């Protein structure tokens, strides 16, 4: 494994770390996008651990900060945020190509990173696959039934409710959050269909931390219908994990999953290139 830090981008405003395997492959590389406002190391260093795991398996990686996040500055260009995200990821692809020879890329995004991976994968032909962690999905009838029915039938929940009435429990105060309005489900579905038509491999991973809008692996079908049957789509629900994978065991299970998925869809061949 070899890591090197770079300042790069059209305005040299971006900062990232390229990780290369012992033998440089010339196939598919992974680009890790910021999870919300967390800088490039990822929540609890998730991106560092993932990048190094993939490097040890033969894949090249780049974890970087998008414009104005982490160590990256503003580009100085007059672009909308979605345009800037696309420009940044394209700069990142160019850097990883220069350093590793990769010409196709898999994007890895959690939370807002999943939205950014989606928007980039939709328009850029070099994207060969993507991991969407706690990305698009919406509440469905099934989700509400799964959420409320057990609570209606649970004696302990009713007890807690009555107890709360007697002694009000302070709710966790709302923290300031930067949130992006999600795309309407119909548009998401159409864009995913277009990506699959182009041959992209897509992995959707949901955690128990977003049970408020997604709480069962079956819900993907409830949201996106027949796309769930597409051979290039895989869906997982990590019910035990929280949104940011705070426990190292949960991170390891996620890393195992990503490594296995990459090996299945983009295997490293004996000649030193991924298919």
């Amino acid at each position, binding site marked *: 494994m070899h*890591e*090197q*830090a*770079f*300042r790069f981008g059209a*305005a*040299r*405003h971006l*900062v990232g*770390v390229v990780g290369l395997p012992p033998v440089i492959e010339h196939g598919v590389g992974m680009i890790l996008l910021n999870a919300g*406002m*967390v*800088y*490039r*190391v990822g*929540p*609890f*260093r998730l991106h*560092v*651990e993932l990048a190094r795991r993939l490097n040890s398996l033969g894949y090249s990686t780049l974890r970087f900060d998008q414009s104005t996040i*982490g*160590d990256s*500055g503003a580009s*100085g260009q007059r672009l909308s945020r979605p345009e800037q995200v696309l420009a940044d990821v394209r700069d990142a692809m160019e850097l990883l190509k220069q350093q590793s020879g990769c010409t196709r890329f898999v994007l890895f995004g959690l939370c807002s990173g999943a939205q950014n991976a989606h928007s980039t994968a939709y328009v850029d032909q070099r994207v060969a696959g993507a991991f969407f962690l706690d990305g698009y999905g919406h509440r469905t009838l099934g989700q509400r039934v799964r959420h409320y029915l057990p609570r209606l039938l649970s004696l302990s929940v009713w007890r807690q409710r009555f107890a709360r009435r007697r002694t009000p429990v302070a709710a*966790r105060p709302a*923290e300031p959050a930067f949130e992006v309005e999600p795309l309407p489900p119909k548009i998401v579905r159409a864009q995913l269909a277009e990506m699959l038509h182009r041959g992209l491999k897509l992995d959707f991973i949901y955690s*128990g*931390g977003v*049970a408020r809008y997604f709480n069962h692996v079956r819900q993907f079908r409830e949201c996106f219908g027949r796309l769930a049957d597409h051979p290039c789509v895989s869906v997982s629900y990590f*019910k*035990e994990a*929280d*949104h*940011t994978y*705070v*426990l*190292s*065991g*949960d991170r390891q299970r996620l890393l195992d999953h990503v490594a296995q998925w990459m090996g299945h869809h983009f295997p490293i061949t004996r000649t030193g290139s991924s298919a």
Partner: protein
Amino acid sequence: MKARIEAELPFYFGPGKELFGFYHPAAAVTGTAVLLCPPFGVEQIRCHRLYRQLAHSLAESGLPVLRFDYFGTGDSAGDSHAFEWPRCLADVATAAAELRLRHGGGRLLAFGARLGANAALAAAQTARLDGVVAWDAITDGAALVRQYDSMEASLKVDLNRFEVARPDLDVSTQWPGFETSERLRSQLLELRLLDPGIASAWLTSSSPDEASRLGEPYASRQVGVDVAPRWDDVNGLELAILSHPLLEAARRHLKEMA
């Protein structure tokens, strides 16, 4: 401004190029440079933005700055459970040598939050530091260990975070967000605040936690800052710490020492 930011360089340094650093050059005004020593674990990630802002502010006022990550943290080499106190102190000395090399010698000051402050103070002699500005330095290592254990215990039953409470086995070798080791636990249990015998300033948050409460002889020298980082709050693990008063206080004291 843009040209200065472009001149800031991320790089790897030290033996085997295992340490990640970020150098912020500045026109030499006083011949003094500043080493920023990060805190540990989740506190390092929460303080990342604040450290970057402090580095910009110091570089703008003529003080070159080096930010860096200890082995086993941030972008540096090593797994998270490989973080250990003796290596951490050695990394401070390595980073100080790197900063001297880049800015051409002269006086060296350090700023550190939490264990970053302790690391700077403990390594002051070997790193040949001329002054340290400490923010919420750890005064009682045993209290810090208790705090991390208590946060982890709260975390596993936090139903705002998990659908169901997690068993002990899932959290037994961890402090919030990171794997830990028995060695590190023992090292931190022994940790006490060391007076480096050099220029020092002691910044304290408005409501310090048990682990960073300053006793004598430091209490009379502490400078209160209007910032509430909630070091011991398990609901704040993902919250970045941003504080203009803290930046101002740190910058002012470092400038005075320079």
